[in-house]
């Protein structure tokens, strides 16, 4: 019997707001290990904010987040650092350090968190760049490469420490359909070969259907989760009109 994959992320009763304005109320979900999990929803529903909460950049007003069984907001700073080194983050723009070459960008977390020799770090940097299709671009600066390549390089940096989880904020935003498709393929290949869990924030339907095997739909109106599961299944059997409208781009409603 194949063992059921364990929950690598568990978010329980998360609430967040700015002053009196609540952005999300009592949100709970779990991400299984080795999943490609998509957080989807319309603009302003709090997708990116939820990602910021999951990555520890923002603290939820209430609720709890467990990463691999450990509480993210633990008072022990060393434990928190350990939790965060298990997570890689791909920001929307790539967020590469402009004064560093791609190799230096990727080497930085390795130099910071491992005691590998410089030759081993160099080997790992070459590998990570090759894995994202940027072999030979070690000495290029972020300003010398395209937007799609910046995202790939950002992904290589996110993968530098072989994290268990990689968070991606709108990875397809601003990319042409072919680059977006290649990036989706890359997520699937890396997920299959490295076993990395991907948590992707997106509202690009083609990408969502291509990569996700699990998802949650955030609703801006009720500030809560209105649907969860495999997006293809949700499209076949939408739990409510909101999810149906989103997954069909509102075509059924307007028809």
């Amino acid at each position, binding site marked *: 019997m194949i063992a059921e994959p364990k929950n690598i992320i568990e978010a329980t009763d998360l609430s967040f707001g700015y002053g009196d304005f609540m952005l999300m109320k009592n949100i709970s979900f779990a991400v299984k290990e080795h999943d490609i999990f998509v957080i989807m929803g319309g603009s302003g529903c709090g997708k990116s904010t939820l990602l910021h909460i999951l990555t520890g950049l923002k603290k939820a007003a209430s609720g709890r987040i467990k990463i691999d069984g450990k509480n993210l907001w633990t008072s022990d700073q060393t434990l928190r650092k350990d939790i965060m080194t298990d997570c890689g983050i791909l920001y929307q723009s790539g967020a590469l350090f*402009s*004064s560093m070459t791609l190799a230096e960008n990727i080497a930085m977390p390795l130099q910071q968190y*491992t005691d*590998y*020799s410089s*030759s*081993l770090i160099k*080997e*790992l940097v*070459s*590998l*990570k760049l*090759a*894995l994202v*299709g*940027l*072999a*030979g*671009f070690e000495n*290029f600066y*972020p*300003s010398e490469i395209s937007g799609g390549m910046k995202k790939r390089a950002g992904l290589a940096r996110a993968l530098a420490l*072989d994290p268990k989880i990689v968070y991606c904020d709108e990875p397809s935003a601003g990319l042409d359909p072919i680059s977006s498709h*290649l990036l989706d393929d890359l997520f699937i*290949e*890396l997920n*299959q*070969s*490295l*076993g990395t869990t991907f948590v992707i924030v997106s509202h690009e339907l083609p990408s969502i259907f291509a990569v996700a095997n699990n998802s949650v739909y955030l609703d801006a109106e009720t500030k809560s989760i209105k649907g969860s599961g495999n997006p293809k299944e949700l499209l076949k059997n939408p739990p409510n009109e909101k999810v149906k409208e989103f997954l069909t781009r509102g075509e059924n409603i307007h028809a």
Partner: protein
Amino acid sequence: MLSCQVLTGEVKVILEGNLCSYDNEAEKAQIYATIAEQKKSKISFDAKKLTDWDSTTVGFLYKLSKGRKEIDVTSLPKDLAHLLQLALKVDRKPPEAKDEKQDFFEKVGENSINGYKSFCQGVSFIKDSMKSMLRLLSGRAIMRKVDFLFALEGCSYQAVGIISLISFMVGLILAFVGAIQMQTFGVEIYVSSLVAIAMTRIMGAIMAGIVMSGRTGASYAATIGTMQVNEEVDALRTMGIPITDFLVLPRISALMITMPFLTMLSDLMGMIGGAVVGTVMLGFSIDEYWQYTEKALKMSNFLLGILHGFVYGYIIALCGCYYGVHCGRNADSVGVATTKAVVASIVWMIVITGILTVIIEEAGA
């Protein structure tokens, strides 16, 4: 553990045990050397005794296999083989690196051309800013009142504290240094004249200029530079709005209006600083000190100082805006633009002071 066997037309790399975080330089170097010698041989692997692996193992195998035509990954664990193949699948090749070696004449030529281009760019920017000022006078400039008021706020009362402090200290230092020399001749009272003339004629304006260059000029370059990075400047250009009207004019106008007043403040604070030395250190009464200060004060010196302040205001705003508008597209460029704006405005202030001094001397003022 890593080792390799050379067979006929084939090099077999043997992977054994736990290779997680594997960093045995000597073993790796030996295998790299063997592989490099056997340029045309096929590379195959024996991973029967491999118990565990991670990215460092893939990194090693990738380095071995890069650029080789024949690689047999069949005996590698499935995931390891998949990762290696993914890494070896090159999507795109980097462009060929240019031959960047230049001889002496090429360097001189390129620098001269770049220098000429920068000069033309600068002159064109000054011309555009002048045109914008003329448009402002004729009421046709596209300048938002709120932008002007915001710029005015930033370089008026908000700068009073720092200018007062610096000028007070400069007046104090001038008086102190002057007093040491004058004491030898017994004419310490003329310290008041020295401070009054120096501050009103040039020092007040220079001190206000230097402070405003570091404070406001740098802020202009950083603000407009960030707008350039965020493509806001491009948006203005494509909307057909002259950037000199929209971005430069409010800042130049604000600084040209406030700098004469800040110069007056600087003059006053410098003289107060001198008076502190005159009364506390040299023992003169306030009345006596003021009497000599009043005698030394000349309207022509005072007006010259104000004129300098007015010109410095234009230079500081122009340099800040110029380097902001011509900033690059990344975070570093904003820092470079800010530094260049401060350095250029101070250099140009000194150069223009020299030119004005010669003109004024020739005119006999």
